[in-house]
């Protein structure tokens, strides 16, 4: 019993109209987010270039210690902190904020409120970063890892973050959806947690051993409450979005989020194993680190089951290729981190290049790769211009993927051998340093590949902002539709 053709025609038209109206709403929302998002993303990309350059110079200095060693401002001890701050508080934080602004509009189905605060926030944030980097270069470092920026710079950044959070909360309060999607849980949590954390850590409340404990409470929690939620919010949105299926399980999402909130913030003190802190405090943080298997497993299973049967799409979706790489790296880096927290692994790995490899697996292979995927998805929609050269995206992906792989494998292997050598009293210390030389060259090679990839990415990004290059009428896929359709 099929309906008469006329009736079918009408119902099809109604459905099409409904879809069209949805699309127009979506375009309106994207437009409201466009300017602040572009401002945040573009600043992020600029800081990515600065940070990569600093990191690369610092890395080469480990191979050629006398190179650029003549003046204080360009010594390793000043360039490396600028690298760290530029890529974390610059690139990841700003690009992540851009992604959050856009996601907030999409997931709340409403236009962005209080955008003036967002512009102010982005400008202040950049001022804070410039001020902080300049002070560190001039020798006024705070001296604690992740907290090198002196108080004036940190205060500006804290203010910028609070303005950003206010606009986001206002937009959330005006949401047009009943159900709050899982990406938003992570975003809202980080918007509450991070300002609190950043202000307490920079307030200078602790001295002595307490300050060391506070330092790593902050250092690890910056990852917990800001960088990881950015990566997870992106992965939770873009994987189902590109594939076109709902995320596998709401319940796994709940388990993942709440165990994440419960366990992750205790992790910091595992950085101080062997330090003058009470045993129980260190043991508690090791327990919490190992309990991180629970949220990571939940997220990994959730993403894997969502993508199951559709993973072949990474062959032609640029966004999915980057985001899936990031999501898999999240699982890898988290499992590695949990094991690395234990006393028996730290006996070897602590104070070696192994730790540096692990840090880059998390901050680059996970968070940064997800952010690249997000930028490739967001930019055409807000700039109204497709990526002009799909091949540049491919080049960027392979440079970044190969770069981080070489970087990680070199430092992991080199760091482990270094640790074993340092644990052998009969080996003179200088031999344990010489042993790492080839691996440090591997690090410089990996870093060079990544930096070239970032230049390609930045160039492509500029083209889209300026609407330059060949005009395309359809979204970028790596293969032509005919090719994919053929068996």
């Amino acid at each position, binding site marked *: 019993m099929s309906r008469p053709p006329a009736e079918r025609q009408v119902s099809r038209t109604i459905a099409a109209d409904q879809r069209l109206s949805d*699309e127009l709403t979506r*375009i309106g929302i994207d437009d409201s987010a466009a300017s602040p998002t572009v401002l945040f993303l573009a600043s992020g990309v600029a800081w990515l270039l600065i940070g990569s350059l600093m990191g690369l110079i610092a890395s080469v200095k480990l191979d050629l210690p006398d190179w650029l060693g003549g003046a204080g401002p360009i010594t390793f001890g000043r360039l490396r902190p600028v690298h760290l701050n530029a890529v974390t508080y610059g690139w990841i934080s700003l690009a992540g904020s851009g992604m959050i602004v856009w996601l907030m509009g999409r997931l709340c189905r409403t236009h962005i409120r209080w955008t003036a605060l967002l512009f102010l926030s982005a400008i202040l944030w950049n001022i804070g970063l410039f001020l902080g980097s300049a002070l560190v270069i001039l020798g006024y470092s705070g001296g604690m890892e992740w907290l090198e920026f002196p108080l004036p710079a940190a205060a500006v950044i804290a203010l910028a973050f609070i303005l950003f959070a206010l606009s986001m909360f206002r937009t959330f309060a005006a949401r047009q959806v009943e159900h709050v999607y899982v990406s938003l849980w992570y975003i809202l949590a980080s918007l509450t947690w991070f300002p609190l954390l950043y202000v307490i850590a920079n307030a200078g409340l602790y001295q002595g051993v307490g300050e060391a404990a506070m330092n790593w409470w902050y250092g690890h929690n910056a990852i917990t409450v800001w960088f990881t939620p950015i990566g997870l919010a992106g992965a939770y949105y873009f994987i189902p*979005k590109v594939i076109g299926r709902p995320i596998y399980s709401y*319940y796994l999402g709940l388990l993942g989020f709440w165990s994440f909130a419960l366990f992750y913030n205790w992790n910091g003190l595992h950085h101080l194993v062997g330090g003058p802190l*009470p045993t129980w405090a260190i043991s508690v943080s090791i327990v919490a680190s190992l309990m991180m298997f*629970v949220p990571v*497993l939940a997220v990994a299973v959730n993403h894997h089951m969502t993508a199951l049967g*559709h993973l072949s799409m990474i062959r032609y979706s640029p966004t999915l290729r980057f985001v899936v790489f990031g999501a898999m790296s999240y699982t890898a880096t988290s499992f590695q981190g949990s094991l690395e927290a234990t006393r028996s692994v730290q006996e070897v790995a602590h104070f070696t290049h192994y730790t540096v490899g692990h840090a880059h697996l998390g901050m680059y292979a996970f968070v940064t790769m997800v952010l690249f995927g997000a930028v490739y998805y967001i930019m055409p929609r807000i700039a109204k211009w497709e990526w002009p050269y799909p091949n540049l995206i491919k080049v960027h992906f392979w440079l970044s993927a190969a770069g981080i792989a070489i970087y990680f494998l070199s430092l992991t292997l080199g760091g482990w051998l270094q640790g074993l050598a340092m644990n052998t009293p009969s080996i003179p210390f200088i031999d344990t340093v010489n042993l790492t030389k080839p691996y440090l060259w591997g690090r410089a090679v990996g870093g060079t590949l990544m930096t070239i990839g970032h230049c390609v990415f930045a160039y492509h990004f500029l083209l889209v902002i300026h609407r330059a290059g060949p005009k395309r009428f359809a*979204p970028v896929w790596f293969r032509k539709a005919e090719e994919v359709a053929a068996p």
Partner: protein
Amino acid sequence: MTQQKQGDSPPPTPPRGKDFTDERGEETDVQRIHMNVVGREKEEPGEGFEPTPWWVWTASVLLLFIMGFYLGRYGGSFSAVAHEVEDPGVAASGPVKTEVKGDVVFAGVCQACHQASGLGIPGQYPPLVASEWLLQDGETPIRILLYGLQGEIGVKGKTFDNKMPQFHDKLSSDEIAAVLTHVRSAWGNKGGAVTAAQVDSVRKQHAVRAPWSAAELEALRKKPP
């Protein structure tokens, strides 16, 4: 499953320019927008409601148990002063005796007056180098360290009149033994080692008392109690 697989293909490239027409062969703006937006992305993601796999719960609970055990075993009894985990081998053999270093005690306690050279300061603090009070026997210096010394005393032919403080409540028997062994063998001194047991026996001989005088010490040396 085939249906799903089809969903994986990228949407067909929308036709361009003049080719972009509706069913009647006319180009329409509405349909242009439609193709552009409908073609470009799928609907906003939602959440499915599949149950959490049983093995995820099992693994989580198992891990919680193991970690509870770990914390009990390696938690240092939640003491604020316990640093790092005790070595089980050492713990089984009883309380650990830490080695007290006499030179460290000397540097912290004695050096301010008797000087690093052990020569003291003429007219104020008597020397320890070749001092008859220090070297003649082991018990006299223990008495001095425990309960102090006040009044005139002749050391190596010179007279001093100052006050040596009491250490019976400030230093342990181990520390007194270590520092005396140190000063009786440093700077060319050739006194024998002093043990903690000797210090304990002197502690038993005398109740806590006021500082000695030189005459009292001399009498005790000649005729021990």
